[in-house]
């Protein structure tokens, strides 16, 4: 059951360039109907991983399976299931958007009808520009044409390398809707980005890569952090409150006008009672929602962001 859910399985892949290990023992999976974010600072190896996933680069060790086909031995069969954008979308700019798309449509494993082609063009909102030469396109339009060539043949696995570069807020929203739609149709999506804000609204799972190594694989909201409760407390006597809590072995730090307290269990009531009993007035107590941004910064602390 679990096996069938995986549309991409990356197992212990490594890549050396000369003596330098640029990807070291990377493993992760992408499931059908799920969006996985490949997150990392620039130069961490995201694009190298995506290049290996589409066979533009070879891997020295490990295996890549797409729809259970081993990429290195069954390239053609594996690639029939893949749509991808690798780095900036580049086209034959002396041809129109339509002529470019038709190139890729012809190479698709199954016949793509004109209806289907027009449907894809409409879904990326290029219907008014599709017969113009690509050299007249803006970066956002090229990006959308890039998405069109990737989804044209209804792939099971969609690999998108920094697809949100050059999109305006409206374009971003349309992009998210489109990804949501593909996801609902059971497509497994891998999106790379160095920007966490791009990922937060889109991804179900997260793979974090730093200096060629994968440092986190798991759901978007880090499960390790879930059991911990962080509260922010404001009282009328902050220093006194801190002394009391520290004496009681609470993990307390000062965060601006608040005291930031890490609780291993939800002991908010006891904590408040303790302080009130000591004659301290509570002004505000709120649960601190750890934003992914902060998690990301913490996970990548030594990543040289």
């Amino acid at each position, binding site marked *: 059951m679990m096996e069938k859910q995986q549309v991409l399985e990356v197992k212990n892949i490594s890549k050396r360039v000369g003596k330098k290990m640029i990807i070291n023992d990377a493993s992760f999976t992408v499931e059908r109907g799920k969006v996985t974010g490949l997150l990392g600072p620039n130069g961490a190896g995201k694009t190298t991983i995506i290049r290996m996933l589409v066979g533009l680069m*070879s891997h020295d060790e490990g295996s890549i399976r797409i729809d259970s086909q081993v990429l290195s031995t069954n390239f053609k069969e594996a690639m029939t299931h893949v749509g991808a954008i690798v780095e900036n979308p580049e086209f034959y700019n002396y041809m129109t958007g339509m002529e470019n798309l038709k190139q890729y449509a012809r190479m698709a494993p199954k016949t793509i009808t004109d209806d289907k082609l027009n449907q894809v063009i409409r879904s990326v909102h290029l219907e008014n520009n599709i017969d113009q030469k690509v050299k007249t396109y803006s970066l956002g339009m090229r990006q959308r044409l890039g998405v069109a060539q990737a989804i044209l043949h209804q792939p099971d696995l969609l690999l998108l390398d920094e697809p949100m570069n050059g999109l305006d807020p409206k374009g971003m929203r349309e992009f998210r809707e489109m990804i949501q739609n593909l996801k609902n149709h059971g497509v497994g999506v891998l999106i790379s980005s160095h920007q966490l804000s791009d990922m937060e609204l889109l991804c179900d799972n997260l793979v974090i890569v730093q200096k060629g190594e994968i440092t986190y694989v798991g759901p978007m909201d880090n499960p390790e952090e879930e059991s911990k409760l962080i509260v922010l407390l404001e009282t009328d006597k902050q220093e006194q409150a801190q002394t009391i809590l520290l004496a009681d072995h609470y993990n307390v730090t000062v965060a601006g006008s608040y005291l930031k307290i890490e609780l291993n269990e939800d002991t908010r009531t006891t904590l408040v009672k303790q302080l009130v009993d000591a004659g301290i007035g509570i002004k505000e107590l709120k649960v601190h929602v750890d934003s992914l941004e902060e998690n990301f910064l913490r996970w990548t602390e030594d990543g040289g962001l």
Partner: protein
Amino acid sequence: MSILIKNEWTKLIKKKSAWIMWLLLVAMTFALTFLVRTTAKSESGEVMMKANDLFASLTEMTSFLNLFIVVVAASIVAEEFSRGTIKFLLIRPFTRSQILFSKFVVCLIYALIGTVILYMTSLVSANLLLNSQSPFTVVKGYHGWNALTVAGAYAGANLLLILLYVTITLFISAAIRSQSLAVGVGLGVLFGSSIINSFLNVVMAKYQWLRWNPFNMLSIKNTIMEKMGSEINSPAYLNFWQMAGGICVYSVLIYLAMQQLFKKRDVSLN
């Protein structure tokens, strides 16, 4: 496979330069014929040159045709890299060998059409601008062949040369991915071969096997004309079929080496 060839052909023919090169070939053939006409005029204003004299050698324009083919072959792979489109091309369910093969075929189709254009233009321009003559007239020194056959033999021999130029240029284009270097080496082989050959000729008297070197094969067009005894005895001498065979063998070897290199290399663009 035919899909890939169709795609490559579309990409080539949508470029203005592909048409410009064919048009240049036509324009230059007419220009050269006109130049010959002006220099071959007698004092009375009568054109002294017969049409077949120029037509039979394809107006000596084959070098220009080959030059254009080298330009096409150099850009057909290297341009995919410089544009960055190679990554969209190689992630389709086709092997790299198939993609490279389709580019190779398209170069040859372009060359074939160019050859037909040159053949027709030479025939028309010579008969329009020089003393027109039936193309079925026998040309002296060519085994009793008529002008159409002699021109055809030159065109065919030249196509064999093109085969070698295309593989050499594609090799550089695919292995080194530099368009300028591919054009440079292609043209170097095209125009520099006679220099290398004249140097090798000196050595060939001692080492006869050197006549099988690829540069010697490039003089295949000289083997079409009937030969004198002295030429046959020269150490560099190979007949037409020996040279044709040699060109094919060299082309196949270079083609296989190119495919091997292209298959293995990582594609990274930064």
